[in-house]
């Protein structure tokens, strides 16, 4: 069971790389949503006694991260009429290398973290930290609002992965609440993207720093 879980986390780390290396926004959205789906089915594989609430959360996560959010982002992308982040602040190869270096550093670091004995062989902690780092790099390095949202969602995936460590002790209500927040946030961002596009004829968030009355 543990090796199956590690395999899925390794795949999620691979998807981080694809998210960092791609210049096309549809593939970025796809990488993010596939990662969300992989993380969504993880609690079902982890839990020894299958509860209906665990299954409900898994179904909801897969539905929201795999279908609803990508759908909203794709619609925002189409209405804003862009499909490439042409001029990132950090280029694709540098951000790829940055993400890889971060992942390696996290793998080394997690050897020295005082984890519970039954978590020590798992990739959960390095995977979570690697996703958080990837999210940060996307948030800092990209200029288009939609790629930044994808960065934010990958960051959230990392936090969710970290939360799986505490699956036994956190009430599932918290997870459900986070999921709801996330959906609303992406929904609002979809509207904002549309407004930015109408106001400035571009989704470049750098233009927002020069707002005047």
């Amino acid at each position, binding site marked *: 069971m543990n090796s199956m879980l590690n395999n899925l986390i390794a795949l999620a780390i*691979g998807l981080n790389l694809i998210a960092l290396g791609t210049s096309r926004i549809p593939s970025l959205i796809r990488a993010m949503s596939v990662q969300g789906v992989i993380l969504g089915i993880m609690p079902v594989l982890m839990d020894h006694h299958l509860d209906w609430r665990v299954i409900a959360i898994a179904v909801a996560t897969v539905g929201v991260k795999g279908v609803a959010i990508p759908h909203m982002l794709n619609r925002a992308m189409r209405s804003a009429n862009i499909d490439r982040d042409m001029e990132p602040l950090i280029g694709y190869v540098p951000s790829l290398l940055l993400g890889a270096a971060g992942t390696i550093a996290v*793998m080394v670091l*997690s050897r020295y973290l005082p984890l519970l004995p039954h978590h020590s062989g798992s990739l959960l902690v390095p995977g979570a930290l690697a996703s958080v780092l990837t999210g940060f790099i996307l948030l800092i390095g990209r200029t288009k609002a939609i790629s930044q949202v994808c960065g934010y969602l990958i960051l959230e995936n990392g936090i969710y992965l970290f939360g799986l460590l505490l699956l036994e002790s956190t009430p599932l209500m918290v997870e459900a609440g986070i999921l709801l927040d996330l959906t609303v946030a992406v929904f609002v961002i979809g509207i904002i993207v549309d407004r930015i596009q109408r106001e400035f004829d571009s989704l470049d968030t750098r233009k927002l720093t020069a707002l005047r009355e």
Partner: protein
Amino acid sequence: MQTIVHSILHIGFWLLVPPLLPGVINKVKAWVAGRRGPPLFLLYYDLARLLRKHVVMSETASPGFILAPVIGWTALGLATAFIPFGSAGALICFKGDFILFIYLLALSRFCTVWAAMETGSAFEGMGSAREVGFAVLAEAALITALLSLCVQSGSLSMEAILSPSAGTGTLLLAAGLFTILLSENCRVPFDDPNTHLELTMIHEVMVLDHSGPPLAIILHGASVKLMLFSVLLVQAVLPVGTQSPAVSMALLLGGTAVVTLAIGATESLMARFAFNRVPLLLTTAFLLCLFALLAAWRGGVA
């Protein structure tokens, strides 16, 4: 006695079966496009035809023009001896032989480039430059992939590292190795084996001026290399070596068929990448293999 039978079967398999793979790939591509496609055994007919023909040599070429393809083909053939065949094991096996395996592949690449440069044509120099440029990244990725298998299985010979499955990083390793396979064998999206525009070719441009028997062994060598990487991918990902002989043989042949179909599907569905995007893709493949190494190192400890 058993070693003799094993050797004959091994050599017979690697001589006769590989030219089938390009035929299968072409059939898949034709099927996706709705055409009837070339015959499945086209490469066999081509090889038989080329072996009967004369060699045309450029005035600038030295005997190396003939010698290099022979050395390259022999190096590839020797490299196949290290690949175990399901539970039957490899022909040659010693500690650290995966390093020799990598160098044999490099030697065969050097010979292809050498023969291409012998012709004195500018196009072939260009193709060689591209081939070697991509190889810098692809080779690093291959070495990392084999290292991660070494770490996972805790041994240093090809036979031992290929028999169990790749463990934690299996999915990453499969993606990485498949990308290396496409790059090393000059398939789409790195190169288009059908193209006839010298400006965009890589492998095809290097063999443009070869003819007769040398071209036949270059073509045969290319199909052996394709088979080599497919079998490597299947055995790295699936625990082929630990099954009973019948099951392992079925897994190996089925897996190779799936890889071949996947190559055909990739070629039908993808376009070639622009040259400046190829290093990015190869870097991604390298990092996927590197992460598989990390996952084997971290996940395998417990």
